[in-house]
């Protein structure tokens, strides 16, 4: 088990290291003076800020220092939580923008991932059991996984928001509201959250259902299932075992799908103008705010790595074999 975690942490460490390095390197690969060219391309909100920004970023990049010093400094500011200052939302620090957006993104991601995983697994297990269900759940699931997140989001926003007018289609809460700890505000928040959450949930659902169905069918054909059938064990018990064991590869699958799910959340936020990281990234791209973009990149990488680690811990708890120490989840 220690080896298993050691390996995982090494991979995550290397990944983060690489991400930071790429992040440091990419702007320096741009021809000419990166600060000047970035500032020139960006749409800075206040023109008078240009000069201040130039000075600030020249200092931050520290081009007069040797490259390794620059590199070390960038790690230093990273650990201080300093991601620079946004060009687009000058003079707000990038870190502030990001930390303000992250709760919204998490509020969409965490419930939709967990719920779609749980419900999808249940559905898939049911589909593996009954032909009728298999013939309905499976095609629907394939359509759902083939649907681009952004399109389902757009369809739902259009249908439920514009045509039927049931839900709001933009923002995290109504313009007329000021964030506060009141019941009204929470209702408003929830109302804005429901559609983007549902569309994320639905698209992700299909994949889990398909995956669970296939794994459980495989488990039901495994040796232990055959042995139990030969000993006359009721299908209920065999299915319980099969489901339990089929959950394991689905947990690994969750780790593998994180990137896709995060991407899905980002575009869904954009469709709903939801004030999470996705909308921030869109703003950064449209306004050529490279510092904001870089900060968002590191935030997402870090978030995905942490999530991966949590999944590893869960896996060890759920699969006794990892604790016994012989095997681990597929790296």
């Amino acid at each position, binding site marked *: 088990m220690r080896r298993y975690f050691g390996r995982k942490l090494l991979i995550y460490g290397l990944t983060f290291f690489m991400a930071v390095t*790429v992040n440091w390197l990419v702007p320096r690969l741009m021809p000419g003076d990166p600060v000047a060219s970035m500032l020139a391309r960006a749409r800075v909100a206040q023109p008078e800020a240009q000069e201040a920004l130039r000075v600030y970023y020249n200092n931050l990049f520290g081009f007069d220092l040797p490259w390794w010093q620059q590199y070390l400094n960038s790690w230093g500011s990273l650990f201080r939580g300093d991601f620079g200052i946004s060009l687009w939302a000058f003079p707000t620090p990038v870190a502030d923008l990001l930390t303000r957006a992250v709760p919204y993104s998490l509020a969409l991601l965490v419930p939709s991932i967990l719920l779609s995983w749980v419900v999808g697994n249940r559905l898939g297990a049911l589909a593996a059991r009954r032909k009728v269900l298999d013939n309905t759940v499976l095609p629907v699931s*394939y359509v759902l996984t*083939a649907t681009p997140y952004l399109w389902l989001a757009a369809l739902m926003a259009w249908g439920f928001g514009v045509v039927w007018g049931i839900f709001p289609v933009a923002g995290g809460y109504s313009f007329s509201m000021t964030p506060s700890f009141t019941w009204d505000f929470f209702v408003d928040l929830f109302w804005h959250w429901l559609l983007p959450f549902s569309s994320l949930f639905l698209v992700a659902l299909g994949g889990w259902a398909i995956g669970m169905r296939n794994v459980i069918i495989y488990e039901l054909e495994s040796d232990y299932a055959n042995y139990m059938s030969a000993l006359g064990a009721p299908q209920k018990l065999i299915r319980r075992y099969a489901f339990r064991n089929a959950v394991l590869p689905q947990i690994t699958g969750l780790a*593998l799908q994180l990137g896709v799910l995060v991407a899905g959340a980002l575009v869904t936020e954009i469709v709903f103008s939801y004030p999470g990281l996705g909308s921030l990234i869109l703003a950064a*791209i449209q306004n050529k705010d490279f510092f904001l973009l*870089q900060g968002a990149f590191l935030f997402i990488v870090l978030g995905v790595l942490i999530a991966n680690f949590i999944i590893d811990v869960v896996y060890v708890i759920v699969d006794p074999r990892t604790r016994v120490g012989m095997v681990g989840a597929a790296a």
Partner: protein
Amino acid sequence: MKTEALYFAVRNTKLLVGAGIILVLLGIGVIGPFFIEKPPTEYVGMQMQPPGAEYWLGTNTFGQDLWAQFVHGLRTTFLVGALGGGIAAVIGMVVGFLAGYKGGWIDEILNMLTNIVLVLPTLAVLFILNAYIGVRSAGMQALFIGLTQWPWAARSIRAQTFSLRGRDFVDLARLSGVGSGRIIAREIAPNMSSYLLLTFILLFGGSILIASSLDFIGLGPTDAVSLGLMLQQAHQWSAMHLGLWWWFVPPGAGITLIVGALYVANVGLDEVFNPKLREL
């Protein structure tokens, strides 16, 4: 074996339906543009026309013909999918074959690399690369997608190679002094050709979905029209609020149809190649 596969292939509904849809859409994307004289971005006149006899899919707020965009978009979407999926498949094969066949420290290093790229969130990497490097052709987009999509393919190909490596015919070739490259090309790859095909199809579909996300956040090709870009523009110019459903429904449906058909064909092919999955 080949004739048997063919026997089941022409009887497999999933494969036939999936392949049929793909062929029809591919046909529209390949041949369609030749029947449309004007470039897809040209302003043809009437704005915000609903679908009708003249403009099959209507026009947008600028008076552009959406059918023309759709047809050209199909072409780009297929191109990016095939290219991105192909690049990913090739990288995945090279890494998977090498790691699985060579083993040892080569395997260790490649495996580590695979795992690192695997946990990196693809879209985040792509938006950093795309935004900075800023080259915005469809081919470049496909290349970037290919460069980030290969890890899971590499991993499963590695596992398969690993199990084939110990087989008699591979041993025999090795003993008679055949080089690694040749053994992989002549003995191992042909033995998992069906698996490689299935992998490519999944990568194909995945690449299309990623491309649509990239297009949508404004990092799509600037030299072409794609289904994802149609969605992006529809969103950017508030098609939803203006009630121009024909601007964003068809391109999304097109993507869903292509990817769904690829996945279904993939399941069908799997059944064709894998006797255990055939239903009696």
